[in-house]
């Protein structure tokens, strides 16, 4: 058994820096590199890609990364765990195998974890009596006709652990919890299984899951953060008895202090006593933080409880269309001119019969996002007017997009910054969180070695 494991995060979300996972491999020692690609909206995008082309539906960034660093991963024996499989773990593995064959590598083992995608099982589950009641509103999913785009269960971490037990060098999973990516190697290497152990691994994962947000990114006192450009991503240094240190590679920018870690702990938090995962229930009021040298924070005292009998399902469905457009107003009375532009747009749309289910006007630069707390600045030298609409009619939302550019010539003077063409209607993907009895979901794990 290793005396201590170094588990890093190289990707906080799909869209995060593509250079970071490469830096994580090269800038210091690591045993495991975890990468998170799946936001809720990502699942519906990937599902759509797969509907159009059965070979797609996974995180392509991940395959490009693996292709670039494959020899280094093997040489340094860094195992990779990523939820890059999206809704097509098999295709993702296939592309990594292609990359390995191209380099003549034959010893690489890749594990996939799936079974989270229940879009094709909804009828069967409905027949079995699962109502998918909305966790906030209590409504049943099938009470109304809906165009469902994706449905994925947050799988427990055991599936990833099984893939590691069977020797996978790279684990590609579908929907799992973000902290599970970090918990999995701890369960695999140290056999952690008690609620307190699972809770500690989950807390480590929560601190790591948003990448640089625990190492100085998004930190309140940003001016104290050194070398932001070269910010290091977080690493959990964990011992078998539950010693946990949050740190980063030596020589990188950013900082790891009790304050940067504490800010990440409260990020996206609900009831701190009931942090629910498919693996355990964590009590965040038990966590103790202490500085343990420069860029080292010790995490201790973490208490957990046994998991609930349910798993969370994230269902996405089509909820109409939206578009936003913006222009810049400059010169004297910029705000007044922006208000005139907004009312002209709405009036011109009403003249052709366009009324929207929801519409918004924002005046950025005068204290908009902190309205009621600062501003409004009445004499701002320039103002960004941002208009948005929402409606079930795609055509009407597109019609809105045609009314922004005309302001350049048919509005007040000093209008600029209209670029990028007419705003187009975008599908609104809405979320439906629900619970499902655990026994109805079975993770499928498969580990394969690259063939010649």
């Amino acid at each position, binding site marked *: 058994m290793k005396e201590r494991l170094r588990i890093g995060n190289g990707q906080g979300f799909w869209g995060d820096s593509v250079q970071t996972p490469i830096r994580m491999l090269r800038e210091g020692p690591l045993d495991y590199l975890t990468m998170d690609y799946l936001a*809720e*909206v990502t699942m519906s995008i990937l599902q759509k890609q797969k509907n159009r082309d059965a070979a797609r539906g996974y995180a392509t960034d991940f395959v490009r990364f693996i292709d670039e660093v494959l020899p280094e991963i093997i040489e340094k024996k860094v195992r990779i765990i990523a939820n890059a499989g999206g809704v097509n773990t098999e295709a993702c593995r296939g592309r990594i195998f292609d990359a390995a064959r191209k380099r003549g590598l034959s010893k690489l083992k890749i594990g996939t974890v799936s079974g989270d995608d229940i879009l094709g099982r909804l009828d069967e589950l409905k027949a079995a009596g699962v109502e998918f009641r909305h966790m*906030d509103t209590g409504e049943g999913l099938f009470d109304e006709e809906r165009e469902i785009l994706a449905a994925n269960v947050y799988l427990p971490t055991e599936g990833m652990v099984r893939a590691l037990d069977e020797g996978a060098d790279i684990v590609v999973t579908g929907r799992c919890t973000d902290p599970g990516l970090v918990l999995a190697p701890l369960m695999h290497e140290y056999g952690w299984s008690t609620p307190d152990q699972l809770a500690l691994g989950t807390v480590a994962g929560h601190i790591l899951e948003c990448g640089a*947000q625990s190492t100085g990114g*998004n*930190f*309140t*006192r940003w*001016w104290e953060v050194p070398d932001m450009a070269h910010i290091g991503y977080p690493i959990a240094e964990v011992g078998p008895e539950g010693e946990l240190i949050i740190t980063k590679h030596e020589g990188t920018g950013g900082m790891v202090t009790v*304050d940067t870690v*504490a*800010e*990440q*702990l*409260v*990020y*996206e*938090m*609900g*009831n*701190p*006593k009931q942090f629910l995962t498919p693996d355990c229930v964590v009590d*965040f*009021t*038990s*966590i*103790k*933080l202490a500085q343990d040298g420069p860029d080292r924070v010790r995490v201790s*005292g973490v208490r957990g409880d046994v998991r609930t009998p349910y798993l969370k399902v994230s269902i996405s469905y089509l*909820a109409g269309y*939206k578009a*936003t457009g913006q222009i810049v107003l400059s010169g004297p009375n910029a705000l007044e001119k922006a208000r005139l532009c907004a009312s002209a747009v709405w009036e011109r749309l009403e003249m052709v019969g366009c009324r929207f289910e*929801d*519409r*918004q006007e*924002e005046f*950025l630069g005068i204290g*908009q*996002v*902190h*309205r*009621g*707390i*600062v501003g409004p600045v009445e004499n701002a030298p320039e103002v960004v007017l*941002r208009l*948005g*609409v*929402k409606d079930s009619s795609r055509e009407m939302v597109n019609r809105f997009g045609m009314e922004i550019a005309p302001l350049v010539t048919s509005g007040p003077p000093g209008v600029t910054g209209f670029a990028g063409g007419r705003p187009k209607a975008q599908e*609104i*993907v*809405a*979320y439906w*969180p629900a619970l499902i009895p655990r026994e109805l979901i079975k993770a499928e794990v498969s580990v394969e070695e690259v063939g010649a």
Partner: protein
Amino acid sequence: MKEIYLGEIAHARSGDKGDGSNVGVLAGNREVYDLLLEELSIERVREHFSEICHGAVERFELPNLLALNFLLHDSLGGGGTESIITDAQGKTHAQAMLQMKMQVPDDFELLYPMGPPKS
């Protein structure tokens, strides 16, 4: 008494939570935490965010981290992907919270400047 900004004695982070946001406020020390338990009431926070938050406000205590966690329901214009407002994820709500003004005794120690030191 003197008037200060919350940001001079605490730090904070916010993010989205369904159709609302969460704002975690971290007190700079135990004395500040005790003050915030009194001063940073649900009513006070609801009033501060009156034009942003249109639903209920919930508060949770984390004495271990000297933190208070607030949930601001219905504060994102429909939430995450459904919203058409700029801050659809409540990313800026922590910065909004820290601009709250409060009255403290004249000798109450301020811990943080509200920005980088001026040269």
